[in-house]
């Protein structure tokens, strides 16, 4: 099976600091993959390379057989990679619905002149976009709040809205940056169910950066472990749990609890 995302020998350097060093990594279509490691291990950096926030210093990043390393984020999103953020980044002055609509921009045909002329095709598409956004919100139980300002949503709903907004770009790979941060165990279980549901319903691959071992071990089919910018292990959750390097470097005695 060919990979959806394929990273080869990716290195990222900031000045003298090597944040990610020669990492090989891949995600197959429809796969659920986790990326773990202590803070400063390079997870977020790697994530930012995939989404185009940083360009790799060396190495190649391929998505659906195209070289994407170094492309700007908006183009990478257009290719089918969407993401959420560790610290929620919704568009604060927009309503819940408009947050989703803004992400539909990518696949809209009407641009500058369409918006000025406001012709038939334009109005049809506007209606279509609103309808589509509403449908997405409905799937995630947010339709009732469609016209509320997004900041008025409770924390958990804001996280979900961020996922909805990412899905509106019609991705084939969804990147979730610490989605369980700040959730209690009940919410975490709910989140795990949600991630599985998204994968089935939208048929996409999910890459997860997460600290919470229970979440990562619970839903990921494959896990990669980073430390000091290097990949020190990769395998199924049970492989990772038993990997001596991972235990020494990261899990310590906690593994029994996880």
């Amino acid at each position: 099976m060919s990979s959806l995302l394929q990273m080869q020998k990716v290195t990222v350097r900031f000045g003298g600091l090597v944040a990610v060093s020669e990492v090989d990594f891949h995600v197959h279509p429809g796969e659920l993959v986790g990326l773990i490691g202590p803070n400063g291990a390079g997870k977020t950096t790697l994530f930012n390379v995939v989404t185009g926030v940083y360009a790799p210093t060396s190495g190649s990043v391929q998505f659906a057989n195209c070289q994407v390393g170094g492309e700007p984020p908006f183009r990478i999103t257009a290719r089918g990679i969407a993401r959420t953020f560790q610290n929620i980044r919704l568009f604060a002055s927009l309503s819940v619905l408009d947050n989703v609509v803004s992400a539909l921009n990518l696949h809209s045909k009407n641009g500058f002149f369409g918006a000025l002329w406001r012709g038939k095709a334009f109005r049809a598409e506007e209606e279509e976009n609103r309808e589509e956004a509403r449908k997405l919100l409905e799937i995630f139980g947010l339709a009732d709040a469609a016209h509320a300002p997004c900041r008025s949503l409770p924390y958990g709903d804001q996280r979900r809205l961020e996922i909805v907004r990412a899905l509106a770009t019609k991705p084939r790979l969804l990147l979730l940056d610490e989605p369980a941060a700040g959730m209690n165990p009940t919410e975490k279980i709910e989140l795990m169910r949600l991630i599985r549901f998204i994968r089935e319903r939208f048929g996409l691959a999910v890459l997860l950066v997460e600290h919470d071992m229970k979440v990562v071990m619970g839903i990921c089919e494959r896990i990669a472990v980073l430390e000091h910018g290097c990949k020190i292990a990769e395998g199924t959750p049970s492989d990772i749990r038993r990997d001596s390097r991972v235990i020494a470097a990261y899990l310590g005695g906690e593994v029994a609890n996880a």
Partner: protein
Amino acid sequence: MKPRILLLLVVAAFASVSFCFTGHPEASWQLAQLDDYLLNILLMAGINVILAVSLNMVNGYTGQFSLGHAGFMAVGAYGSAAITQIQGKALLEALGFLGAAAPVVLFSLAMLVGGVLAALAGLAVGLPSLRLKGDYLAIVTLGFGEIIRVMLQNTEALGGARGLTGIPPRTTLGWTWAIAALSIYCVGALVRSTYGRGFLAVRDDEIAAEAMGINTTRYKVTAFVVGSFFAGLAGALYAHMICYISPEGFSFMKSVDVVVMVILGGMGSTAGVTLAAILLTFLNEVLRQMQEYRMVAFSLLLIVLMIARPQGLIGDLARFLPGRTRLKP
């Protein structure tokens, strides 16, 4: 359906009104019969509305902070004056076959040239400024505005520091307010669409906007180009209203005046900044006798406003106007 009707109305008003009220100073039905003083205030108010609404496109809706609006206005003023004053005679002769309509056609052309030149200047400023944010961007736009001013000062063909005199009086109430309406329509129409949500997304969170597939660079440049196009038109109207322009009139102070209108009206509220522009124009006239105290009072007002009501004085009121979805700053 509604917006298009509005657009048609605007265009119709633009064509008929402007044509009627130019060219024949003797015509008894001309609005210039209005008290000259009042007419001037009304013209200035319209020009200020265009300036404030267009700056709001950049500062309010797209979240970029430009302090160089007077520079774009200058480009429009000088660009249009180059057509009607410097090249005016020759061009009027060439348009002679149009008869009485020739000056009006020439003026339209001049405005268009002024607007397009300003838009190009906006492109030139917008492109390199994209790597900057917030206060740095403010300073760079200020710098661009000053560079434009210094260049005009040193260009003898455009009158240098002495300025340009003898610009034909062509600006009418019709032209001014039709263009003001056009600017309000354009900014409103742009923002209220799926495409236009991109401007607001860029303002709220650039990184997230980019991650949603929004080409933030393109949006920011577009905002600058649209904003400076209308600033250019305002400059053209201004030049053909007072018939004399000099680089000093387009200094950093003028940019600050427009910023004050936008802030008073509430950033990101077209209705608010329109009202603020009109209000400040009139206030300016009322306080003209107390010129020296006026500026002290305005600067104090700005400081107090920022401390007490940074969302602007009028922005909240605009919520009660019909048909506007208010956007929080």
